[in-house]
């Protein structure tokens, strides 16, 4: 490997930090006392985080976000993998049509389903429930398409050998396909999780009960209930904002390469 020019590395760091400075500064503010923030004196505290959790419901919102994004990811990746396996390996009547319908969902803008899905869930009595937050987000045509392409690249001889040994299709999927496709499944799972974590408009519509708010809704409310310009308790709001971005931020730093690969592949779909 070539030696890196330390000057260029330093320059890149400076430019990168400058680009991210609004977010970095907001994290800084979240550790300041309100007084320090308004007077400029250096005084640091964890008080804003304590208040976000005790005076406001942010521990609950965090839990809700984890539950909702976690279940959407788990269910979404499971049904996408199953369908991808069928589309990649089975010839069946209507298969092309169903695959076409799956891929076509990539073109369908989500706003068209807002009102009808609200009505469907109202009729089913699922507004203001976890199920109401989760169900409309579970199907992911992109993940199904992406995994189907990936599975097609796995040599069919591996399946056939397993069938010879008397394996059922479910066993082939679970024992042969899933282990080999693990990187792709992981990338897609991450993509679904982050998309759902950041989802705003659907939870905004589907829940009105404070105990069911996700972080996005909780943060938006907290920012809005502050009376007006100048009176906003910025250190408190920034603590809530930091709680909202930190899990994705941390995950991103751990698995940046996977994520970028998944998303780049998505573009060449």
């Amino acid at each position, binding site marked *: 490997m070539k030696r890196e020019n330390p000057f260029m590395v330093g320059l890149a760091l400076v430019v990168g930090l400058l680009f991210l400075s609004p977010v970095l500064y907001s994290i800084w503010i979240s550790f300041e006392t309100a007084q320090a923030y308004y007077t400029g004196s250096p005084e640091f505290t964890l008080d804003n985080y304590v208040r976000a959790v005790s005076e406001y419901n942010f521990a609950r919102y965090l839990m809700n976000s984890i539950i909702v994004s976690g279940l959407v990811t788990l269910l979404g990746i499971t049904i996408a993998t199953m369908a991808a396996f069928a589309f990649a390996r089975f010839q069946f009547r209507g298969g092309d049509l169903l695959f076409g319908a799956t891929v076509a969902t990539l073109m369908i803008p989500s706003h068209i389903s807002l009102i009808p899905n609200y009505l469907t869930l109202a009729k089913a009595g699922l507004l203001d429930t976890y199920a109401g937050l989760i169900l409309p987000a579970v199907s992911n045509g992109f993940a199904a398409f992406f995994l189907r392409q990936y599975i097609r690249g796995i040599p069919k001889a591996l399946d056939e050998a397993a069938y010879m040994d008397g394996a059922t299709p479910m066993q082939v999927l679970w024992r042969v396909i899933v282990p080999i496709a693990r990187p792709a499944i992981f990338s897609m799972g991450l993509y679904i999780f982050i998309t759902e974590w950041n989802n705003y408009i659907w939870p905004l519509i589907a829940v009105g009960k404070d105990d069911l708010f996700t972080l996005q809704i909780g943060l938006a409310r907290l*920012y809005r209930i502050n009376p007006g310009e100048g009176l906003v308790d910025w250190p408190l709001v920034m603590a809530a904002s930091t709680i909202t971005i930190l899990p994705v931020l941390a995950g*991103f730093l751990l698995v940046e390469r996977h994520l970028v690969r998944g998303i780049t592949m998505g573009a060449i779909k």
Partner: protein
Amino acid sequence: MFRALTPYLLVAPLIIFIEVFTYVPILSSLNLSVRHWDFLSPTMPFVGLENYETLLSSRDFWNSLKVTTIFAVLSVPLRLALALAVASYLVRETLPSRLLRAAFFLPSVTSAVSIAVVFSWVFSTDYGMVNAALATLGFGKVPWLQDPSLALWVLIFVNTWKQLGYDVVIYIAGLQAVPQELYDAAAVDGGRKLHVFRRVTVPLVMPTTYFLLVISVIEAFQVFTIVNIMTKGGPAGATDMLVNLLYRVGFTLFDIGQGSALAVLLFVFLIVLSLIKSRVIGRKVHYEA
């Protein structure tokens, strides 16, 4: 016998979810768009195209269409030009370029709500980062989000900041697919850097540009979160983009008929754009320049 059913059982869960939450809603939207309804009344009478007529003769609709079009026309070329410039600097696999790519990419996976809140602070009149910076240069306070002529620009800036890294990553993938020999040949011919960029790079990444062009226009027509948090469509409708109008008509005025009519119009427009996209992507590159 059971064997033949296997693929159907495997695709059933996905297909059922897609059916219930994606395809049926398109039909319901069409149906609701020709009815009068407010979520509560027991009947929903058929009113023909009345909702469309009301919508097309309302000031709000045309204002939203105008605002959204301006947003798209200004923000998309800005994003693409910046992204291509940045990408051509970061195309090599060195440590500094990987660091910078990660920094640029980070906002595109960060919560839009958080970004909107943070930038509401950055652009706030009395305590914001931007006005503080301007103050040290001797300028007065600028009411960024309260001035109708500035607010849309702020949203364009925030949206560009958030999405730039995604475009950069896609452009890098496109640039890396360009054969190095073409650059070498251009260099041998004594091409100057800017010249090579214009005559070799830009034409060769045209397919990527088309792809990004269409998806970012589609995205621009669906911007909602930053509007909802930062301006709520104001001041005086200056940032009242289409999905924000849809949200207001459907979920605060509870005019289901008109909300659905708006959803259908926007849907048709975006589908046409998507079809253009899939044609473009399906096509091969034309290496002409």
